[in-house]
């Protein structure tokens, strides 16, 4: 194996695949990046759940493959003095990396021992614009559960139905759903993908081009051209979000997204991060002013915002985190928020469209 490539491209590829390299694996070879050289260079990171492959062009002198410690490789390549990087591997898996006057010799592991990334067979295919998928992931993945004892909720439910793609995340207390009409042929199906994987996919997604998504019974593959992400699907039945979203409401109000977000952020300043006994109270005394207040043992905070409201006046406590996280991912200027009394579900939608819905339940006093 012998090749010469650009440091910048190689660093980028290493950064991408490193996301799938487990740092604390009991299997030593999984700490490594698989380097395969044919007509291009392919780098692979795989933690047995998520696998990422990244390809880059290079001047190839001799094909071959080897596994190199991921961190070491990344640290070395990032610090190489020149843009041109030269790799060479002998028959004993000793790798020589040269750049300018700097030279490293490292011992690699045999590529045959590296686990194979699953091949996604008999797959259904979907083609989605990269930008759209990126937005959809950003608007939902934050609401997935991180509690490992509930594996299904660690995932995002991807549903394609009659040309519409939906991403749904639920952590048991709130729900985020984002829908989008997708042009072209979209087969009906649904599956659960680990939110962690999707976050990695989102990092790779660009603002242009399409992503090809292939799914089999057990696996999903995201093909973004030079980068591939493969992941195990989460098996099980996801909660039906349609049965959770309320059809009616008692109150609805329109408010500036940015103003509400800042107000929540200010109010949470008097709530210590580690003290969750306190909540932020949303209250209306008339149909054009919303008061946002918090009262804790540190102090109090109170402010008022202009709103346009219809329906019953309300006085409800919320966990500010749940509002802040949702408002942060809504780019629209105004949101429509509906309430169902102090114990019923509260739903946030952008005013202009209903592509995004976010449901949160209040805190009981």
């Amino acid at each position, binding site marked *: 194996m012998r090749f010469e490539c650009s440091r910048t491209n190689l660093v980028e590829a290493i950064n991408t695949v490193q996301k799938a390299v487990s740092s604390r694996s009991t299997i030593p070879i999984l700490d490594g990046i698989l380097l395969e050289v044919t007509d291009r260079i392919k780098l692979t990171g795989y933690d047995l759940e998520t696998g990422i492959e990244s390809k880059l062009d290079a001047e190839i002198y001799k094909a071959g493959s080897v596994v190199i410690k991921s961190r070491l490789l990344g640290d070395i390549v990032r610090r190489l003095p020149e843009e041109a990087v030269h790799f060479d591997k002998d028959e004993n898996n000793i790798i020589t990396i040269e750049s300018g006057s700097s030279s490293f010799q490292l011992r690699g592991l045999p590529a045959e021992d590296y686990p194979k990334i699953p091949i996604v067979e008999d797959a259904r295919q979907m083609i989605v614009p990269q930008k759209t998928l990126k937005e959809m992931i950003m608007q939902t993945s934050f609401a997935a559960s991180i509690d490992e004892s509930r594996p299904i909720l660690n995932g995002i439910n991807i549903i394609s139905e009659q040309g519409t793609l939906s991403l749904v995340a639920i952590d048991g207390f*709130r729900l985020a759903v984002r829908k989008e009409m997708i042009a072209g042929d979209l087969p009906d199906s649904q599956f659960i993908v680990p939110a962690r994987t999707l976050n990695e996919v989102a990092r790779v997604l660009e603002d242009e081009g399409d992503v090809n998504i292939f799914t089999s019974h057990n696996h999903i593959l995201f093909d973004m051209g030079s980068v591939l992400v493969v992941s195990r699907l989460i098996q099980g039945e996801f909660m039906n979000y349609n049965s*959770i979203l309320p059809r009616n409401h008692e109150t609805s109000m329109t408010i500036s997204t940015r103003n509400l977000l800042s107000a929540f952020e200010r109010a949470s300043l008097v709530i210590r991060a580690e003290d969750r006994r306190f909540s932020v109270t949303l209250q209306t005394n008339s149909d054009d002013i919303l008061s946002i207040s918090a009262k804790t043992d540190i102090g109090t905070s109170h402010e008022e915002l202009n709103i346009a409201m219809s329906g019953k006046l309300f006085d409800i406590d919320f966990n500010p985190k749940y509002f802040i996280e949702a408002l942060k991912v809504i780019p629209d200027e105004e949101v429509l928020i509906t309430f169902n009394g102090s114990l019923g579900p509260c739903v946030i939608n952008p005013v202009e469209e209903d592509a995004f819905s976010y449901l949160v339940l209040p805190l*009981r006093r």
Partner: protein
Amino acid sequence: MALIKKLDPVTINHIAAGEVVERPASVVKELIDNSLDAGATQILVSIRNGGISEIEVSDNGGGMTEEDARHCLLSHFTSKITTIDDLETITTMGFRGEALPSIASISRLRLRTREPGAELGYEIKSEGGKIIAANPCACPEGTVVTVNDLFYNTPARYKFLKKDSLEAGYIADIMGKLALTRPDVSFRLLNEAGKSILYTPGNNDLLSAIYAVFDRKTAEGMIPFENNQPPVLLSGYISTPENARGNRARQVFIVNGRNINSRILSVAIDESIRGWFVKSRFPALVMQINIPQELVDINVHPQKSELRFWQEKEVFSAVYHTIQNALASVSGIPSVLEPNKDQMQSVLPASVGSERKSSTSTDISTIVVDSVDEKEQQRHEKLPDKSFSSTKTQSILFNDEAKDKQISYSDMLPDPLDEYIAMPLTRPETQTDLPEQVSSGQISLEHLDITGIQNARIIGVYANTYILLEMEGELVIIDQHAAHERILFEELLSKEPNQERKMPSQLLLKPLKMKITQLELAAVTEYREQIVQLGFDFEDFGVDSIVIRAVPEVRSELNPELAFSAVIEACVNENIKFANE
């Protein structure tokens, strides 16, 4: 006058009753044991006021003759053994000849019995242990024992009885366990409204009994296990991690047909599930253990709920390895371990050859960078048996877990646990290099004096996990994560209970239905007010379930089911303390 006198039989029975009969559930257990010994295939129990006013146990067993019926209320009259030697080979549930006389001595008891084929049944009534009537009567084949007004003549005991619902819960609990012990017998428990609280079909299918006693979801997710290697024969089912609970209430151990509690078995289970189950989650489990009678002593406790194994280590090791194998056999769970095995095979032959060795030695001279790492690498290659053996892999998992471990059963074990686990396998060689004290794991917390810790010099942090300190010439290693947990714990404890408002409770997106036992239901109902104060919101849902609507809003995300099962356990064990008390 002589001061030392022989006690009269009534007093003796009274005292014995104190040991055997603790609460209505103990009566039910003793009577069911008798029914089982009589060969019953159907046992019906009906209770009133949690069994305090009335317990009736009827069976279709062999019944008794008139003479036997008279004798059975007398102390130490038993058909089950005749000499002490019989104890060695005991196969019946009872043998002490104490149960019925003890129950009779503290209640109003009526016994009706008829042998199959006999023309007439026979009825005996007693009050406080004295027979007040005995005459022929009409009676179905088998035996019906009716116990009324339990503890009516022992006010001290009566005072300690709990609410009816809780006592009924204990009865349902013990019956469920007995039903799991004998899937070939149909059990039915009726409450005073005639409603069936428990019913098992008695079709000799353990899974059907598990379905009936636990629930469908648990039964469907059960993994079978078996060990056919004498002397410790094992069989049964263990639930998958998805059906785990926050407590050990659903673990049933049956040793030679007898439902027992055993610390050693609980520890064996706790150890064997490490790495498969999330910390402090426990599987539902029904384990039948058959072991030669001479290797166990069941005559430890009058209620026969505990026993002693003569070869504890063998029992531990059999249980441990059987459960490990069962869990490993289910695909998908041990995903990280599987490829490791493959790798072990591929690495082993390659690295043994002498050619290989010579090539690695030349490698040393060519290595420039990261020599420490590379040496490590070579050691791995030269000694693949150490680095890849399955024992090692397992112990890695344990160590990881062990650092988070709080108080568990294993802390109470007298011997180092390693020794138990390692039984049939050889100890990893590397351990022999360690000082005696370390390898045997006998450093106990009592000996660790950390009063001078404020003056200790901080050396640094290792692996982002351990804080290393130098204190009075000694090295102190602090587990960062555990220390952090402790700080949070202390912080929570020190917080003044907020008088003005209770813990805010976060409503759930979708109410969570949870199946719970009668005992658990009674316990949480008893403490409902305090539980709500903690920030939970729940409601009864049918006879055997509750729905959780809200959970406390705490610092980190809370798994509602896990959190609530912890509350249930606290309520059932009554070790619950509330800030407002």
